[in-house]
């Protein structure tokens, strides 16, 4: 039984939290995440969930409390955005290193300076190598679905890793969309009872978290940690398959849109993929063979599968909603380039930076990119590899 509702992205994710009812939630408010935690706090104060909600004085404390609660043996969640995620930085690596299955929606927002509350992806991109699994979501439905799946992925006994669920600040978090809610019982039985691994509160079996490990073992510990991520893709697919059975909605590593027979393509994350698909439809009607790839599992990055899905193209643009300062390329671009680097036949690549700090991504921008790709495919010449688009001169 599903229920069709009109809600904001934050409301949808708060509802997923209500349905899952984590044991502990420690959070600090930050725009645009605030509405999510505020709604969840109402569920707590109304007695709709028994979650222990810890209101802390900073995001550093929020994630630290989550680490403690998860090590104690509870199902734990939090949420943040932008500067909040930046302040969690130190603890992100500890949560992953301890293999604690914490779930954290990241409502994507630009980083300071200058201060800005609107969407771009620089927050989550800055945390991409912290060891958290990252699932990215185009719309409120995907944010809701990914949140539910995130608990199953994080808690899988083969991996036990924290998961971020990324969705666009304001564009998705605060816009009302039609979405389908699964009923409470379905979600509860899908997620299942929490099974702790090495809980500290099991005092009959004493154990220690957080040892000092120096030159004699640190290198081995990191190798073991790195190997764990090889098991993540299979878990993500297994959970997606089961989720399809209860929802009818299909998830994988990425969405490929009109890509199979395409000659040119665009890679783009999150909400801007929707706009891009519309423009692709217009160009398809004119006979232009253009397609799109929208990553969902961004960490660990499915290099092989994505490389395979893109290698047949003649020209490809990676659209990044985050820049990498210091003269580098957009973070998504670098991974796409790496996924293609060993194929002898591969597309010519360009990187375009769009939509920083909530700047609207308009259909004309997608059209301009497609026109440029058509030219590159025809001439075999790349003018400029990395450029900002939609920027005033």
């Amino acid at each position, binding site marked *: 039984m599903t229920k069709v509702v009109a809600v904001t992205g934050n409301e949808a994710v708060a509802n997923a939290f209500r349905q899952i009812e984590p044991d502990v939630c420690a959070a600090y408010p930050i725009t645009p995440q605030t509405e999510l935690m505020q709604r969840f706090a109402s569920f707590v104060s109304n007695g709709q969930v028994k979650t222990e909600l810890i209101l802390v004085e900073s995001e550093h404390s929020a994630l630290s409390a989550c680490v403690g609660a998860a090590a104690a043996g509870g199902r734990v969640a939090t949420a943040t955005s932008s500067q909040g995620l930046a302040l969690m930085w130190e603890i992100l690596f500890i949560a992953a*290193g*301890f*293999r*604690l299955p914490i779930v954290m929606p990241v409502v994507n927002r630009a980083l300071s300076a200058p201060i800005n509350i609107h969407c771009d992806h620089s927050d989550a991109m800055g945390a991409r190598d912290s060891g958290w699994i990252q699932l990215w979501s185009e719309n409120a439905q995907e944010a809701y679905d990914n949140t539910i799946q995130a608990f199953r992925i994080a808690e899988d006994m083969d991996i*036990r890793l924290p998961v971020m669920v990324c969705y666009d600040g304001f564009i998705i978090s605060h816009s009302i969309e039609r979405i389908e809610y699964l009923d409470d019982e379905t979600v509860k039985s899908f997620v299942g009872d929490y099974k702790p*691994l*090495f809980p500290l509160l099991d005092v009959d*079996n*004493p*154990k*220690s*978290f*957080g*040892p000092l*490990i120096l030159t*004699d*073992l640190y290198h*081995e*510990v990191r*190798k*073991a940690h790195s*190997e*764990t991520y090889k098991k993540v893709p299979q878990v993500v697919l297994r959970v997606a398959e089961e989720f399809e059975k209860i929802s009818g909605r299909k998830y994988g590593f990425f969405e490929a849109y009109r890509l199979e027979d395409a000659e040119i393509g665009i890679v783009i994350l999150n909400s801007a993929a929707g706009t891009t698909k519309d423009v692709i439809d217009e160009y398809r009607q004119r006979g232009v063979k253009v397609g799109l790839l929208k990553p969902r599992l961004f960490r660990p990055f499915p290099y092989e599968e994505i490389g395979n899905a893109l290698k047949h193209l003649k020209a490809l643009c990676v659209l990044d909603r985050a820049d990498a300062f210091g003269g580098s390329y957009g973070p998504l671009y670098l991974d796409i380039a790496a996924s293609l680097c060993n194929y002898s036949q591969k597309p010519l690549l360009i990187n375009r930076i769009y939509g920083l700090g909530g700047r609207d991504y308009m259909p004309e921008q997608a059209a301009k990119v497609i026109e440029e790709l058509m030219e590159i495919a025809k001439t075999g010449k790349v003018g400029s590899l990395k450029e900002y688009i939609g920027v005033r001169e």
Partner: protein
Amino acid sequence: MIGWKDIPPGMVILEAGSAMKIKTGSWRAAYRPKWIEENCIHCLLCWLYCPDNSVKVKDGKRGEFDYDYCKGCGICAVECPGKKGNKAIVMEEEVK
């Protein structure tokens, strides 16, 4: 030494009391604590505050220091209330 395949998830140490295997007494440099039994009121604050396993307790009574684990940090000497203003722990120069 163990290889990477034998490391438990999250590096969690499942063996209780395994810190006893690491003799941190080798960290001690300039000073070591000395117990003065006649000033001791057996409050066990030194046992509570000691960050390692160097204060021994038997039948609820304060026993000798185990210098195999004593880092010489001096916390016990600071915390010790002693008897009538006379400390039951003092820090002495390490004998080489």
